[in-house]
């Protein structure tokens, strides 16, 4: 029964009890992207940023201290794994939980910086992430209450109507967790040091946003 078309032919499905993960060509590409960037976070060496002193010729190479570096790497890998889970999840609530893990690890990556200004930004993003739990989990709960199921397999194909509010809530929730349309605001994040790991924030939020668009079109 797990071979019906989702938004393309389903390539394969992995059942975990009620939660049946699946891969379609679209989600498989997203998954591979997440896997690629996770591998980059594991393998790459961190950047060494240059501090230029104004008025002089001096250029210093800044080194990020060891514990911060390790912590950022751990957070980036966790973020990548959560994004991988979110891209192939076949259950709406499961997707929501993976998404909130992405949000939390993003906050972790930003907060590892000791800069007061960056910490201020991290706090604002953290507040948005926590407010986003209302639309995210609320949307999933409204889907469950009005359709009687959370499985994307059951909801696919348009046989069961999912209310507009639930879809809007889900999109808003993912926007809050991944801050996807707030890229402009993310300029503050890039002041945080640690290039390959900072990249993970952008990649993961883009991936979960693409995935939620796929989900609301499918259901």
């Amino acid at each position, binding site marked *: 029964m797990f071979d019906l078309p989702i938004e393309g032919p389903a390539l394969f499905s992995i059942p975990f009890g009620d939660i049946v993960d699946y891969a379609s060509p679209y989600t498989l590409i997203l998954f591979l992207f997440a896997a690629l960037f996770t591998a980059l976070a594991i393998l790459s060496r961190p950047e060494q940023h240059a501090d230029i002193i104004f008025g002089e010729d001096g250029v210093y190479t800044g080194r990020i201290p060891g514990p911060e570096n390790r912590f950022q790497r751990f957070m980036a890998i966790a973020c990548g794994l959560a994004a991988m889970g979110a891209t192939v999840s076949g259950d709406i609530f499961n997707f929501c939980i993976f998404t909130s893990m992405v949000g*939390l690890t993003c*906050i972790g990556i930003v907060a590892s910086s000791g800069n007061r200004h960056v910490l201020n930004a991290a706090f604002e993003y953290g507040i948005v992430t*926590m407010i986003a*739990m*209302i639309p995210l989990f609320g949307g999933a*709960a*409204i889907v469950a209450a009005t359709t009687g199921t959370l499985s994307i397999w059951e909801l696919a194909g348009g046989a069961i109507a999912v209310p507009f509010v639930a879809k809007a809530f889900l999109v808003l929730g993912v926007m809050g967790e991944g801050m996807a349309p707030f890229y402009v605001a993310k300029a503050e994040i890039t002041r945080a040091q640690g290039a390959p790991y900072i990249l993970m924030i952008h990649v993961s939020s883009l991936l979960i946003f693409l995935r939620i668009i796929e989900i609301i079109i499918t259901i």
Partner: protein
Amino acid sequence: MIGEIMAGDHYLPGIAIICVAIVILMTTFFREYDDLHRLILTGCSEVVALCIIAFLATDLAEALILPGLVVSLAELVALSEIYINKEGLGLVPAPDRTIEVFSSAPPIIAAILVIYGIVLSGFTGGAVAGVGLLFYYLCLDHKERFALLETVSGYAWVLWVFAFFIFMMLPAYWFFAVMMAGSAIFVKVTIKLALIGTMKPDQLLEETDHV
């Protein structure tokens, strides 16, 4: 006696009230610019999120509330720590807690709560035992416990994942997996609460001397 109440009888009024609550809550975020107050308001927003799930009114809802609750608590802990960091509050001297009760009571109360927690077991048992340990670590000075507690909690997490894979791959051994997951959740919740207890200024005595 209560008459026959079907699940979902009051679903629409409930959602209506929740929608109004969301609008009120969001208005406060519009008006409040104090960081600490906004941090507390996010706690309120978690309650609203859990309420929407609760209106589902099935066993599934209860099983979804638990992850929702844990996720919101976890984010609140992380966010509070960011708040303390960004405000630079770490240097505030700790209040003088050299009261005699705080040196004699913790072992007794902690022991009672931990034993009671073991009897309860599971999530609630972990919470009860964790409160006991939290109290213990808050009152007494234990410096090197932090890393140890973190390690044990890591092992509990691995145990849980292992139990999940038993459920998925060898479902015939479900009993073993239930016991494993049950004890892992107990250990994990206990230790997470105990960790909060250890998060206090280390140099308690020196700092109070300065004051």
